[in-house]
């Protein structure tokens, strides 16, 4: 007698399910996985899940939730059922993201030079000039190799038909890639049997690709540039990632206090004395980089760093001023950027977006707060957001005030019926909403890491995938051709 599939009670609901085309019918690329999971009894599955948590704990792959005086270390929640993407699907994502990142880079370059896209009226000049992260003091400044966005994380979602959309771009300090690498490692240790049936593309070239790109943007005076990773320090929630990447790349992890600027050259304080720094991969926001240039109260930066940067004596990845392009109001114009700079149609569409900045859109937003997702244009981590259908009247009222008071800084999008993926729970499996964040590196070539972070909203019924609000992640398998 055939054992019951562990998914016999699994409910796909009305959503696009990544694993099941219809109840009981796994998609072709998931069949082998479903079968392998069927051969594991629930106790074994749970035990391996515990081994995963223990491994993360031992490695100290945690993030810290700060409240009042204490910091509580939590393991970044991980669900061991991998998300699988077949090669032909990935090809579209790969080419679509390359197209998008090239257009975004050209936009940033344009906006800090001739501003053609504004002159031609494609994007309202006011929208750009009022952008919180626009740095007018850098108009006219040329960066090494004209590349601004060396590291990008763009978030993709799917609707109920399975169509991929780009939900947002992260062009300042995208994080999460270390979890991708750590997840893959743990999956191999704890669930090697699941890999047997598939040809999964490896993800381990990320750090060598990144270091190669960082070398590529170094100032020309040396053949052996000194590259460092600048971190805000151990209290930052992504600190694990900073140490992980620094170690993988074999570069120093530095804090602002370790560096000084003399005569427009950046140095790091070592036991042998000062050593010149040529490239800084900075995980600190523009505002905190240099108390002499931006926020004077910043203790995290290096006084004089921006002068050294302007003098061309040190390169930054990502450059200063990229935030203008991940402003959510500017996001709405990315398809226009692709058309304007590349004369191409976007391969991956945007989610339809209403701008508080546009009067007609504003009226629509205010009338439909209960059905839209409303977001502040420049916040991250899932904060500053209203999910209409899940919100109370009081929350809607609060947002009504906020949006009306500062319309330029709010956008709204229809509530997407995000795709779901089975995740393990105590009894078996439950469908949880997922998104996908592939990581793109821009150097001499644009490379998209195969896979990325599949973030999963683990709280039952939740649409929020951010770790700060109960989200977790899955390993993402992109299959070879």
């Amino acid at each position, binding site marked *: 007698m055939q054992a019951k599939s562990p998914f016999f009670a699994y409910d796909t609901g009305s959503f696009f399910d990544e694993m099941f085309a219809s109840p009981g019918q796994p998609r072709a690329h998931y069949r082998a996985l479903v079968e392998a999971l069927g051969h594991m009894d629930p106790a074994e599955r749970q035990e391996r899940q515990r081994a995963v948590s223990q491994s993360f*704990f*031992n*490695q*100290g792959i945690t993030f810290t939730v*700060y409240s009042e005086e204490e910091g509580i270390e939590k393991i970044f929640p991980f669900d061991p059922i991998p998300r699988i993407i077949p090669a032909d699907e990935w090809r579209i994502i790969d080419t679509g993201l390359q197209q998008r990142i090239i257009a975004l880079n050209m936009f940033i370059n344009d906006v800090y030079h001739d501003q053609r896209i504004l002159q031609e009226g494609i994007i309202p000049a006011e929208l750009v000039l009022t952008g919180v992260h626009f740095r007018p003091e850098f108009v006219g400044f040329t960066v090494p190799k004209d590349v601004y966005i060396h590291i990008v*994380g763009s978030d993709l979602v799917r609707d109920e038909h399975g169509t991929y959309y780009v939900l947002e771009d*992260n062009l*300042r*300090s*995208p*994080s999460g890639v270390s979890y991708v690498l750590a997840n893959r490692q743990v999956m191999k240790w704890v669930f090697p049997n699941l890999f047997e049936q598939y040809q999964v593309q490896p993800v381990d070239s990320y750090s060598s690709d990144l270091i190669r790109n960082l070398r590529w943007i170094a100032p020309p005076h040396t053949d052996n540039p000194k590259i460092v990773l600048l971190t*805000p*320090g*151990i*209290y*930052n*929630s*992504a600190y694990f990632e*900073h*140490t*992980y990447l*620094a*170690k993988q790349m074999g570069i*120093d*992890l*530095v*804090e602002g*206090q*370790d560096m000084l600027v003399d005569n427009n050259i950046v140095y*790091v*304080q*070592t*036991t*042998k*004395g000062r050593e010149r720094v040529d490239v800084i991969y900075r*995980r*600190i*926001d523009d505002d*905190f980089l240099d108390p002499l240039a931006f926020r004077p109260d*910043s*203790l*995290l930066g290096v006084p004089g760093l921006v002068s050294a940067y302007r003098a061309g004596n040190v390169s930054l990845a990502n450059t200063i001023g990229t935030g203008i392009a*991940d402003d959510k109001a500017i996001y709405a114009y990315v398809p226009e950027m692709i058309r304007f700079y590349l004369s191409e149609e976007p391969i991956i569409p945007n989610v339809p977006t209403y701008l508080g900045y546009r009067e007609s859109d504003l009226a629509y937003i205010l009338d439909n707060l209960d059905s839209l997702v409303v977001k502040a244009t420049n*916040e*991250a*981590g899932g904060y500053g957001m209203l999910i209409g259908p899940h919100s109370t009247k009081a929350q809607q009222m609060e947002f009504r005030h906020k949006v009306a008071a500062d319309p330029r800084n709010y956008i709204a999008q229809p509530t997407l019926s995000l795709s779901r993926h089975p995740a393990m729970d105590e009894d078996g499996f439950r469908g949880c909403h997922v998104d996908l964040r592939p990581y793109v590196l821009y150097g001499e070539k644009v490379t998209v890491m195969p896979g990325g972070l599949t973030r999963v909203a683990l709280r039952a019924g939740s649409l929020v995938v951010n770790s700060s609000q109960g989200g977790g992640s899955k390993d993402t398998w992109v299959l070879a051709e």
Partner: protein
Amino acid sequence: MLSRVANALLLIGRSIERAEHVARVVDVTTNLTLDGPVRDPERRWRHVAEICRARADIDEDGIDATFAGTGRYLAVEESNRGSSIACLTTARETARSVRESISSETWEQINRLYWQVTERAPYWSRNPHDFFQSVKTGCHLLHGVIDDTMVHDEGWHFLSLGKMLERLTNTVQLIDLEREYSATDVTEDPGVWAAVLKSCSAFEAYKRGVSSAVTSHDVIKFLMFGTSFPRSSLYCAIQVTEIVRDITLTSGVKGTRDIVLERLSGRVRSTLEFADPDETTVAEGDRFFKTLRRSCHDLEQAIPEAYFLPGHEVRPGFLDIAPQQQQQQQ
């Protein structure tokens, strides 16, 4: 390497060694005070508190000079910076702040040891020997991992320097304090001097290498001047001079500060190398130990000046700027 990182590694080396030292000393004292009421347990516990640099706390805070009071304070009290558990916490938190400079295996072992010990801490008194064993074994394992998985470059040298410096000063201080303690005794108590040996994991080595009779004279000689016993003061002093020299070699630069360090570490070493054992006994050793401890102190003070910029206040991982650091990560 970064000054801040070098300082952190030194601190890690010292913290681990201190955690182990405190564990060992408290373990031995617990054992010693259980039998033989003639041994004045209260006086003994106060003495141990002094060895563990907590005498002032015991006196001022009115902590009982007992196993349950002082023993606990030295083993698992988090607010006591010198307790075994606090030293491990310091090691772990500091390691976390320089994680990229140590091997993953090293970090993982420090992390595991920290969690193991903190989880057991509430129940430590049910089986104290077992608790201290887990600290000691964990530290031994950690030393092995460090030695075997890290390149023996500058970072490794600073870890070793911290360990050896701490071991050196701990051993010297332990013996000196024991001398003072015993100075008023009419007859020597071999049990007490055996405990001193055990505090340095040296009991068996002594029995095998020196003699079956435990006398203060021979114990002091063994623990201070034995060149092949890895915990003797002289052995540690030799290690320190060699590490200081290796650090200079690695950096390829010999500045005035390096010379100062070489001189100070050399002075400690030669004080031990050329000592007359008759001048180091319980009765006669006051002057010798005073000079030696001052030399050790000078050496400790010179290290930050040599390697970490003067006036550059380095507090790895404990800066008071948490709110700013928690900025947006996308």
